[in-house]
């Protein structure tokens, strides 16, 4: 018999950066969604296009209904973003190698300049978290003053998705390196986790057991969405705290 700590996990399985989401305290307030949009230069698409399901949210709060009135209940709010799968289903279908796996950061990358807009990746993503630029969405002046210089502004015909705020990862790594040290746990976090008023989102290195996110991930009470598909997602959800 093999003890759990003897199981050798592949680097895809452990991942490097991970996230935990506590659905029990998530109030669905949309602060993470707004923070993500502001950090990542996400376009707003307007009423008509959002009606067609073309809105560009990199993170969305899912909620479903259970039961009938008066015993109706909303299922715990479920922030859903790119799960940064270890075996991502989006990657092998990209004919342009725009959707590739980062070996260095163990993230699913979307290389905008390679993307030709086949949308195969979005069709193959079981989490439905990829957003496609159906148009060159406008930001009337002077709204463009607010654009984050660390993030590419995407154009029409390009697929995009949550990057785990890779620009913040790079900035933190760069600062740490310039100071001759490792990135510390909690030194930086993603825009969504930073904004979350209930601290429902925790982000960090899941491959280092001492970090907060690793401790929560490994407490055994979480679930990974659609893990049965073998996607090895790196976001862990906790339904009841």
């Amino acid at each position, binding site marked *: 018999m093999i003890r759990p700590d003897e199981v050798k996990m592949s680097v895809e399985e452990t991942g490097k950066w991970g996230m935990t989401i506590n659905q029990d305290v998530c109030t669905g307030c949309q602060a993470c969604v707004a923070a993500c949009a502001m950090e990542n230069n996400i376009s707003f698409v307007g009423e008509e296009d959002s009606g067609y399901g073309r809105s560009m949210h990199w993170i969305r709060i899912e909620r479903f209904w259970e039961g009938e009135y008066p015993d109706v209940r909303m299922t715990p709010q479920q922030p859903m973003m790119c799960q940064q799968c270890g075996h991502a289903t989006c990657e092998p279908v990209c004919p342009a190698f725009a959707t*590739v796996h*980062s*070996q*260095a*950061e163990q*993230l699913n*990358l979307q*290389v*905008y*300049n390679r993307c030709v807009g086949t949308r195969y990746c979005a069709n193959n993503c079981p989490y439905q978290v990829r957003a496609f630029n159906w148009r060159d969405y406008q930001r009337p002046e002077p709204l463009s003053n607010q654009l984050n210089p*660390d*993030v*590419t*502004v995407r154009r029409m015909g390009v697929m995009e998705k949550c*990057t785990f705020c*890779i*620009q913040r990862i*790079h900035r933190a790594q*760069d600062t740490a*390196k*310039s100071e001759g040290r490792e990135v510390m746990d909690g030194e930086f976090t993603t825009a969504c986790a930073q904004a979350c008023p209930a601290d429902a989102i925790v982000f960090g290195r899941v491959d280092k057991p001492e970090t907060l996110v690793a401790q929560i991930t490994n407490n055994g009470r979480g679930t990974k969405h659609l893990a049965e598909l073998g996607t090895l997602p790196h976001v862990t959800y906790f339904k009841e705290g």
Partner: protein
Amino acid sequence: MIQKFFNWLKQPLGLIASGIVFLALVSAVVYGIWRTQQAPEQPIQFPHKTHVNFGIQCLYCHPGAARGPAAGIPSQAKCWACHNQIVKTRDSALLAPLKDAVLSGKSLEWVPVAIVPDFVHFNHRPHIAAGKNCEECHGDMTKVTVAQNPQDMTMGWCLNCHIKNAGDDQEKLVKLTDCGTCHY
């Protein structure tokens, strides 16, 4: 009608005409290519060589390079702080645009030439920290006036250097050739 036109094209006159059109197209293409390779117009023909030959360090005016992604353009106040004290430059016609800009509170509009597309996120700091010198990418500034770009600054150029520098260090190679290192 169209048939007539094509028949005419095969006449000597038509052949000459098509020749002219062909030449015009070719020269338009050549002109187009030539245009792309021209240095942009700058508000002042800034003589890098003079400044560098005076012994001024690159980082004196572009201190951002040692600290972060952008090297930066010095503020006009910084330029004028020195030039205002040098009699020769204070009233020089060559520096009139600077003087005007400083006095009127308007900005000079520089056009950087060593640039990468907006989907590339270049960071100066690690390159300086890794011991690269400015001239390895930007060329010898003791020889040029307005900055010129000695390289294409294409991805191949970046990668060649990254691979060379990674050497046998596998971890470094992975990091330096990862798409996500520059594209996000």
